[in-house]
C-alpha cells in the first residue's frame, strides 16, 4: 500500500506528519527534515517519497492547494479507473488552522523566487501546531493498525 499525506502544501504539515508517521521523533528542529519548505518539490506537483513504515508501506506527502476533499476524491477514483485495488493508495488528509497562510506564503515565495524568509516563516507557523500534527499522526497510526 502507498500512503499519501495530503495537505494544502506537501512540504509543511503534510511532510512533518509523514515523517512522524514513519517513525521519526518529534523534534524542535523539524526544519532539518529533508524537503521541508522546498519550493521546487512543491511546485512539481508530484507526490514526495519520504520513506517506508514498519509494514513496508511507501509513504508520501502531497500538496493539493485549496481543496483537499476534491483531490482526495480524484485520487481515489483514479486508482480504481487505472485498474488498481481501491486500497492500494490510502489518502490521509492533514489540516492545520493556518494552512491557507502557508499556501499563500508558498505562492508568494514561488513568484518572487525567495527562499530563506519562506523557510523561516513556515517554520514559525508549523512550530505552533507540532503537537496537533503529532496527535493526528497517532490517530492515523491507530486507524491503520486497526485496518491491517
Amino acid at each position, binding site marked *: 500500500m502507498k500512503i499519501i499525506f495530503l495537505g494544502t502544501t506537501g512540504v509543511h504539515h503534510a511532510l512533518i506528519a509523514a515523517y512522524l508517521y514513519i517513525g521519526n521523533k518529534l523534534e524542535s528542529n523539524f526544519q532539518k527534515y529533508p524537503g521541508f519548505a522546498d519550493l521546487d518539490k512543491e511546485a512539481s506537483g508530484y507526490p514526495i517519497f519520504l520513506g517506508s513504515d514498519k509494514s513496508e508501506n511507501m509513504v508520501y506527502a502531497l500538496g493539493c492547494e485549496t481543496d483537499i476533499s476534491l483531490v482526495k476524491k480524484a*485520487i481515489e477514483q483514479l486508482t480504481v479507473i487505472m485498474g488498481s485495488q481501491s486500497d492500494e493508495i490510502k489518502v490521509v488528509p492533514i489540516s492545520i488552522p493556518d494552512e491557507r497562510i502557508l499556501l499563500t506564503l508558498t505562492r508568494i515565495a514561488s513568484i518572487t523566487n525567495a527562499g530563506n524568509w519562506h523557510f523561516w516563516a513556515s517554520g514559525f507557523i508549523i512550530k505552533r501546531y507540532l503537537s496537533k500534527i503529532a496527535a493526528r499522526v497517532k490517530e492515523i497510526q491507530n486507524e491503520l493498525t486497526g485496518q491491517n
Partner: protein
Amino acid sequence: MIIIYHCYGGSHSSVTAAAIHLGLIGKDKPPTNEELMAIPYFDNTTDNDFGSIRFIGFDEYNNSVFVMGKKSQADRFSHVLMGIGELLGKKEEILAVNTMGRVNWSMKLGGFTSRRVGLAFLGRPLLLKGTTKAFWDLVSLVEMTRLKILNKVKTQ
C-alpha cells in the same frame, strides 16, 4: 491509455475538448449551439461533480477519455494526476490535459453565471458564444494531445 481533460468545472472547455478528441463534434468547423448542448455533461454539472473523473468515451485507439472539474487547482494538477499514475506503476498509461489555458472571458463569465449563479438562461448564450470562439484553440490542444499519445505509445 487514460486521457483526462480537466478544467474549473468540468462542464465546458474540458468536455468540448473531449468531444473534439472523440469526434462527437467535427474539427473542421465550429459547432452550432445545438451540437454543443448535445455534448454529454456540457453546461450540465452540479457541485457534487467537482473532483469526479467522468467517462466520456473511447477513441479510435481504444484510449479512454475522461473529464474532470478541479476548481482553481493550478496547472500542476496535471502532475498530481500523473504522479498518482506513476505511484501505481502505470506512468505511461495516463495523460492529464489542462484546458484552462484555452478558456476566454466569455466562457468564464457565462459559465459562472450559468453554473454557479444558476441563471442558465442568462449565462448560456454568452458561454456558447465563448466556446465557439475558443473552438480552434481547443482543436489545437486536442491535436497536440493526440500527438503526445502517439509519442507515448511509440516509446512503450
